[in-house]
């Protein structure tokens, strides 16, 4: 340890720390720059950075932003939740069904979030009480929740939408499509508020500190009298609830209850967190950086849409993931040696 204290190695350590601090912002800048050069004149119609285009992109991305921010917390505890995408699918469908059947927005929101709490606590139960490995446990619920979402859509139709007898109310799109402030929607504003709330939760509360303790050194946490089961279970519930909130936003954006809308959302959330420098093994992670990571993903998905075919888009996303994981690995490896 003491041998690592030469001025040169100290400088190198410091440089590494700074790179770790800012690289997600550099990637965002690079991605945005490349996308804006691909097509059209800068800031004009057809260009990626055309302001209405950006506003629409942000309106559309609210669900994945919410999920990615919250996903950071489960990563910090050293666990994982693969079922967030299916939770998103299921809650989108449930919200659409409730609204279609005349439930007011607020009531449907409360019911859907309560459903999210239930789904999250099932995950927590499987992982913490039945002690099933998180990957396996949430792989199971990922399939179960997705199946449930498909089951709720009556046979013969592909999504919950206006029928002969029931009409989707006109206000369905208010939450995600209305431009309330500089072209942004309520859902996006909620995503920002949520981000701030999660930052406060992480930095200022006991719960936030316990997340780090549990993920950083579980034995030490247990020895200090922390109820590890309760803490991790709590994060699963929180993530379930936020995924459900994202479901409401997604339904409002699509105007229908599409049962496969959440497929792949867990992958996007994982990439977002890794881009943001979250450590896979727990203990470290920043909600803000995951949020930025999610914006990178959204930019790639949306910015490449009209430019290259879909399989290239998937490949591009895959390439970014590999890059993120390798970079993350390199930076955290250095951190251990220091």
């Amino acid at each position: 340890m003491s041998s690592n204290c030469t001025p040169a190695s100290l400088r190198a350590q410091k440089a590494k720390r700074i790179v770790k601090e800012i690289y997600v912002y550099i990637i965002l800048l690079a991605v945005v720059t490349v996308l804006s050069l691909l097509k059209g004149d800068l800031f004009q119609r057809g260009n990626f950075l055309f302001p209405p285009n950006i506003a629409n992109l942000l309106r559309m991305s609210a669900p994945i932003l919410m999920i990615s921010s919250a996903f950071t917390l489960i990563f910090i505890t050293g666990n994982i939740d693969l079922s967030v995408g299916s939770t998103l699918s299921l809650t989108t469908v449930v919200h659409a069904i409730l609204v279609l059947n005349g439930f007011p927005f607020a009531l449907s929101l409360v019911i859907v979030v309560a459903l999210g709490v239930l789904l999250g606590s099932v995950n927590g139960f499987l992982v913490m009480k039945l002690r099933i490995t998180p990957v396996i446990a949430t792989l199971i619920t990922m399939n179960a929740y997705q199946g449930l979402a498909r089951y709720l859509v009556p046979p013969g139709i592909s999504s919950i939408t206006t029928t002969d007898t029931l009409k989707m109310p006109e206000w369905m799109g208010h939450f995600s499509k209305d431009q309330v402030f500089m072209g942004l929607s309520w859902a996006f504003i909620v995503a920002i508020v949520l981000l701030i709330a999660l930052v406060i939760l992480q930095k200022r509360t006991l719960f936030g500190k316990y997340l780090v303790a549990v993920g950083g050194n579980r034995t030490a946490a247990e020895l200090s009298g922390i109820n590890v089961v309760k803490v991790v279970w709590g994060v699963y519930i929180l993530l379930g609830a936020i995924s459900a909130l994202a479901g409401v936003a997604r339904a409002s954006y699509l105007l229908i209850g599409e049962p496969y809308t959440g497929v792949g959302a867990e992958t996007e959330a994982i990439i977002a967190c890794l881009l943001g420098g979250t450590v896979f093994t727990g203990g470290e992670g920043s909600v803000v950086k995951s949020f930025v990571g999610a914006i990178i993903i959204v930019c790639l998905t949306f910015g490449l849409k009209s430019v290259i075919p879909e399989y290239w888009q998937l490949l591009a996303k895959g390439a970014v993931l590999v890059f993120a994981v390798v970079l993350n690995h390199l930076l955290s490896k250095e951190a251990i040696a220091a």
Partner: protein
Amino acid sequence: METNVLQIKGLVKDFPGVRAVNDVCFDIKRNVVHCLVGENGAGKSTLIKILTGACERTCGSILLNGEEYCARSPKDARDKGISTLFQELNVVDQLTVEENLTLGIEDTTFGFLHKTDKIKKIIDVLKDLEPSINPKERVGRLSVAKKQIIEIAKAVASETEIIIMDEPTAALSESEIERLFTIVKRLREKGVTVIYISHRLDEIFTLGDYVTVMRDGMHVATKPIAEVKDRTELVHLMIGRTVIESYVPKEEQSDEVLLTCKDVCNHKLKNVSFNVKRGEIVGFYGLIGAGKTELARAIYGADSYSGEIVLKGEKLKGTPEKAIKAGIALVPEERRTQGLFTLLTIKHNISAMNLKKISKLGLLNSSQERATAKNYIEQLNIKTDSMDKETSKLSGGNQQKVVFSKCLFANADLLILDEPTRGIDVGAKAEIYAIVRELVANGKTIMFFSSELPEILHSCDRIFLLYEGEIKAELQNGKDIDSQDIIHIVTGGAAS
């Protein structure tokens, strides 16, 4: 108030096949530094595990302040007044010093953290013990020594009565050790009883008030340090009647160089250079953390390194697979997790490193496998009723013989032994030494890595001393070798 803070009466702990703690009785006085010594496998660790609630006793009683004491978990033990400084430190690297000290006892309003006098008090305890630690620093950036101090401060702040320290100096430098000693003395002034476990006997004379010696699971003696004449007496108590036959120099030395290491460096090793001659037993001695395992793994190709390792004139490059082909085999440090497939049988383990030899076109020849197993079971005297027994059911010594068999069957010329006698009983140790001798007589070459000086002195022809990843000295074993000197060097003192 009772003068004895802890009374242990007739304590017994049975593990399958072995009695680890056998009818141990002794008392620990209040407000002293009470040392616990004994060889590996003497039962110290098991005794400590019972005290800390990590394992349950078979029978016997423990009285804490005159009342029956039984801990269900380390947390429970801590609540009842017995804290432990484990070798595996229980701090959260990602939190700050202050956050670690208050972990689990924070003050909150509606879930929000805020500062109170309580935090200030705990930090004062820390400042009192070690003023140089900044409470705002992230613990991951601190040295092991400072992490220990944080744990001690936390225990003191929770008004613990007893702190158990398990080999606390194993990973510390000399100046850090001194600082720890000052702190231990300070703890005694504060009315805390310290149970101190160490292999380093000098520490016990410097620090201890009382010493308890254990051997083969039994209590040998408890006396005030002042009544122990010297080191020799202590060593005698520890080792007992078992006399390790002393080193016999080899009659003829080969001059053929088998292995050369040149400027080997990696995350732990610093410019390690040496050579090994055919038919030698070369010892590598150093304390825990000196880089022994890292060196063994580098030679075997299990860890990456820069520099050159040359075997029989050919440069070794990198993987255990290639090392085995070149004629090297490793008996790893952790027998159960690295040396054996514990769920497989003896015969399957023995053949595991050289399945090609007993297979044709990808099909295993099981009669050949049995013949091989039979051969080694006889040759190395593995005590078992059947070669179809799972290795997890064997005793430590017999397990180790299976690992040796496995390496020998792989046609190794050079055997790297990393702590080959760890956790096995005295009798089995002697057998392992005999096996090592015999192997050399049959033309093998041995690199013997150990943190137990007696066995190094007993077995090795040449000895390299490691400290902090560097070779500090090379010694020819013989009558005039000075163990004091060796200890001095491997604890960071200058080579004389």
